[in-house]
C-alpha cells in the first residue's frame, strides 16, 4: 500500500494573510491525488483557503539526540526577546 501510495505532509493556509501550517499527513499515489485527499480529509469544516502537499520523504528533520545542543543554549539569552520596549497602548498587539 505505502509503496503505491507514499506519505505526504499537508499544509493548510487558514486565511489569506496567514501562512500555511502543517496539519497532518496522508497517503496518495501522486501530488494531484494528495491535494484531493488533503481537501477531503483536512478542509471539511472550512479550515482553509489554500493547500500545500509535500512528499514526506522530502522533509529533513533535526536529530532529537541533538536537541540539547540545538535548542538549550537559547534558554538564557533573554535579551533576544524584544520584551524591554514600552509599547504605547494605542499600538495594541504587535
Amino acid at each position: 500500500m505505502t509503496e503505491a501510495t507514499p506519505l505526504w505532509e499537508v499544509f493548510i493556509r487558514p486565511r489569506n494573510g496567514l501562512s500555511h501550517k502543517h496539519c497532518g499527513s496522508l497517503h496518495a499515489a501522486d501530488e494531484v491525488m494528495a491535494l484531493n485527499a488533503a481537501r477531503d480529509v483536512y478542509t471539511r469544516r472550512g479550515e482553509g483557503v489554500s493547500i500545500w502537499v509535500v512528499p514526506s520523504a522530502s522533509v529533513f528533520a533535526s536529530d532529537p539526540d541533538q536537541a540539547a545542543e540545538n535548542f538549550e543554549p537559547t534558554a538564557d539569552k533573554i535579551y533576544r526577546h524584544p520584551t524591554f520596549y514600552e509599547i504605547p497602548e494605542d499600538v495594541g498587539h504587535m
Partner: protein
Amino acid sequence: MALLNAVLELADDHLILGHRVSEWCGHAPMLEEDLALPNMALDLIGTARVLYDYAAKLEGKGRSEDDMAMLRVEREYRNCLLVERPNGDFAQTMLRQLYFAAFMEPFWKAALTSPDEVIRGVAGKAVKEMAYHIRHAGEWVIRLGDGTEESAAKMQAAVRELHRFTGELFESSAAAAFCEADGILPVRAEMRGEWDRVIGMVFGEALLELPDVPYPQAGGRDGIHGEGLGHLLAEMQYLQRAHPGAEW
C-alpha cells in the same frame, strides 16, 4: 404538478446516489477515501434535502422533506437507473460518480439562470460540488484505467457494466419537458455535448474506450427500477417505518 414531479426526479437522483455512496462509509479501500466518499454522499444528500423540502411545499399536502424521502415506496421513486446501481467495486463507484457529476455540473450551471429561486439557489451550491466530484472521480478513473493490469481490467468491466445506464440521463420525462419548455429547468439533452467532452477527456487519459450499447436501459423516471432499489429503500427507510416520527 409538472414542477413537483421534475423536482422529485432530481431529488431522488441525489438521495439515492447519496445513499449508495454512503454505503462505503467504513469500508473504503483507504482512510483518505473513507472520508472523501461520505463527503460526496453528504453533498448529494444536502442537495436532495433542499429539493425534497421544495417538492413538499409544491405539493401542499403538509408533508415534510423527511416524508418525501422516507415514506414513499419503490414505484414512486423517479430516480434514473444509473444512481441506484449497486456500488460494485471501487472502479464502478468512481465511474458512476463521474458519469453522474459530468451530467449534473453543466445542468446546474445552466440552471443558474433559472427564473425559479429555489432551483437557482440549489444550482449555485451544487455546481461547485459537482465540479469537485468530476475531478475526484475522474482522477481515480484515469489512474485505475491507466494503472496495473488488474485495475485496468476492473475499470473496463465497470464501463461495460454502467455505460448502458447513461443514456437515460439525457431523456426528459413529460414533467421535465414541461418545465424545460418554460425555461425553469435546463434541457437534459443539451448536456450531451459537455458530458461527451468530459468523459472523452477522462477516457482518453484512462486508455478506456466508449463501448457500444446495444441495449440502453431506462425506466427509472416511470418508477420502473432494478431490484437493487428495493433493498436500498428497505435499509434506508427501515427506521422511519419501524418507529414513525423517530428523531434523534
